[in-house]
């Protein structure tokens, strides 16, 4: 009777993951009318628009948008990993009574809406903003320099928002790590680098993988931060999709872009898991 316990979860998945994805899939083959309502005229026109340009050749416009989003998300994930891993390690190895305090500190930003925190960054980074003002006041620079509405600002905003999502799962792995194994590595003559590479890294790998997924996947689809801190030029896929559902009122095209993203993720997952099962001894 144990399987009964997972029924609520299965129902939840069916209602809020499978069903919406099906609706999305159907919409992606439809058309819109002049008021922006979905009309059930089926064609593959929306997918054609993503990959084929007006002259009938392979279109780079939306492929570039996908590539740009993956680049931003990938860079964000790498920075989060490099910056977050040591923090997670530090917290996980801290005396037990201090860990909760440190973890609370990591979570405190969540008490404020991320939109408000993003607006705070706008105030800090704008040309007449706090940072430029401070640097000019202290004579470090003479002219304000451009920070907001640049790719750098976008990545900063993403790293700032997603860093805790990497720290928390890695912390979970670090906390469970048996110190005796690390000590054994040292006793057997491994230096810090080898001990890290052959003992610590493999043992914290589940946390790292979870953290990478928790950062990378939402970062690819993020639209609010990229729009607010990037200015809306050079849009990411999240921005384009959000625009289709809102101002451009083209739900079918938005659905087609969304489905493309889903298929992209699904195939990467499939390839990754196949490779792992092939090469595992």
């Amino acid at each position, binding site marked *: 009777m144990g399987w009964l316990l997972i029924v609520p979860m299965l129902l939840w998945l069916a209602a809020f993951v499978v069903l919406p994805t099906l609706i999305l899939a159907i919409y992606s083959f439809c058309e*819109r009318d*002049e*008021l*922006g*309502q979905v009309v059930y005229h089926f064609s593959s026109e929306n997918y054609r*628009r993503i990959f084929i340009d007006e002259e009938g050749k392979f279109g780079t*416009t*939306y492929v*570039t*948008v996908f590539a*740009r989003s993956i680049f931003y998300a990938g860079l964000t994930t790498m920075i989060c990993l490099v910056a977050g891993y040591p923090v997670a390690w530090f917290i996980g190895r801290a005396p037990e*009574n201090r860990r*909760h*305090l440190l973890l*609370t500190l990591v979570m405190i930003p969540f008490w404020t809406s991320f939109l408000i925190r993003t607006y705070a960054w*706008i105030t800090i980074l*704008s*040309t*007449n*903003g706090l940072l430029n003002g401070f640097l000019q006041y202290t004579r470090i620079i003479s002219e*304000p320099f*451009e920070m*907001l*509405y640049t*790719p750098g600002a976008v990545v900063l905003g993403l790293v700032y928002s997603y860093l805790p999502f990497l720290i928390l799962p890695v912390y979970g792995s670090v906390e469970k790590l048996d110190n005796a194994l690390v000590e054994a590595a040292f006793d057997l003559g491994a230096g810090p680098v080898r001990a890290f590479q052959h003992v610590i890294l493999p043992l914290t790998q589940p946390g790292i993988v979870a953290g990478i997924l928790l950062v990378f996947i939402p970062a690819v689809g993020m639209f609010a931060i990229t729009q607010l801190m990037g*200015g*809306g*030029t*050079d*849009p990411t896929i999240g921005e*384009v999709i959000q*625009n*289709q*559902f*809102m*101002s*451009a*009122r*083209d*739900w079918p*095209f938005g659905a087609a872009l969304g489905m493309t993203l889903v298929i992209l993720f699904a195939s990467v997952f499939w390839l990754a898991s196949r490779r792992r099962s092939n090469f595992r001894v």
Partner: protein
Amino acid sequence: MKAPHLSTALATVFALTLLPIRELKAKAVLNLFCWSEYVPQAVINGFTEETGIKINQENYASNEEMLSKLLAGGTRYDLIQPSEYTIEALIKAGKLEPLNLDNIPNIKNLDPKFTKLAHDPTGKFCVTWMAGTVGIVVNTEKIKESITGYKDVFSGKYRRRIVVLNDAREIVSWALNTLGLPINEVTPQALGRAKPLIAEWLPQVKVYDSDSPKTALLNGDVDLGIVWSGEAAILWKRNKKFTYVLPAEGAHQFIDSLAIPQGAPNKVNAEKFINYILKPEVSVKISDAFPYTNPNAEAVRLLKPEQRDNPASYPPGEPKLELFKDIGKAAREVDKLVTDLKARGGR
């Protein structure tokens, strides 16, 4: 620090989740779906104080966004605030409730110039909220050359120093005006001619913002903007270095109105709100916060002289202004053209 007990944590989460349910108890409400930066909080509070009706406010940044949420259903709105061409389309599609003008006696305060306009010739479906234009704001401290129209803004000299509205219909109309084409005849030929021009313009833009384009100008991130006149009027009020220019090629005048969508659950409350905002002293509060062109003749009389002299709110002379008409199916092509060009990116 000790971790809180699991049961305490669960109880807290539960209590917090249930808190809003108290709010659900029946109370007179009005579900207002309006533009961001358009309905001052003082007016909302004043209405609730006077009538006891609580206002649930939700905002949008473009007519198209409003339409997509309204037509998607699921949410029942009592009062919406569309522009002229959107009203026209909604009337055509039978999506608006006719107003009971007996509940809105204060409509007499409106300047006749702003009643029974082309988009609602019988005046049965909407009441003008504010009018305005879309024009160019120049930070004259940073830009010494004279700017008279779209051609100057997008001359190529001000690359990445420009903020524009994130609004496909607007952007296309600027291009059509520049080409000397009528802005309401959006044919495939006209769009074909506009496309290369827009493709040349968009990479020069630094920020797209329909909600609050004044922010990027105030923060010094851009020196030029094509924005709503109310935003320009606020900038001018803050600092006289921000001047407002109506483009020589021609500009869009918009008329935003209050209307009641079909099936609104609280229609009478919506009419009460319309009547309330038509009171001269209330209308003045709207002008104080969002200095667009006030259509309420009685309210304009109560404005301070410096408000009436604000060139962005009440443009002097006889500028070339045009209203948008509903363009039907072509709206799809307009959205598509701008989406595809914007996706190309700038840098």
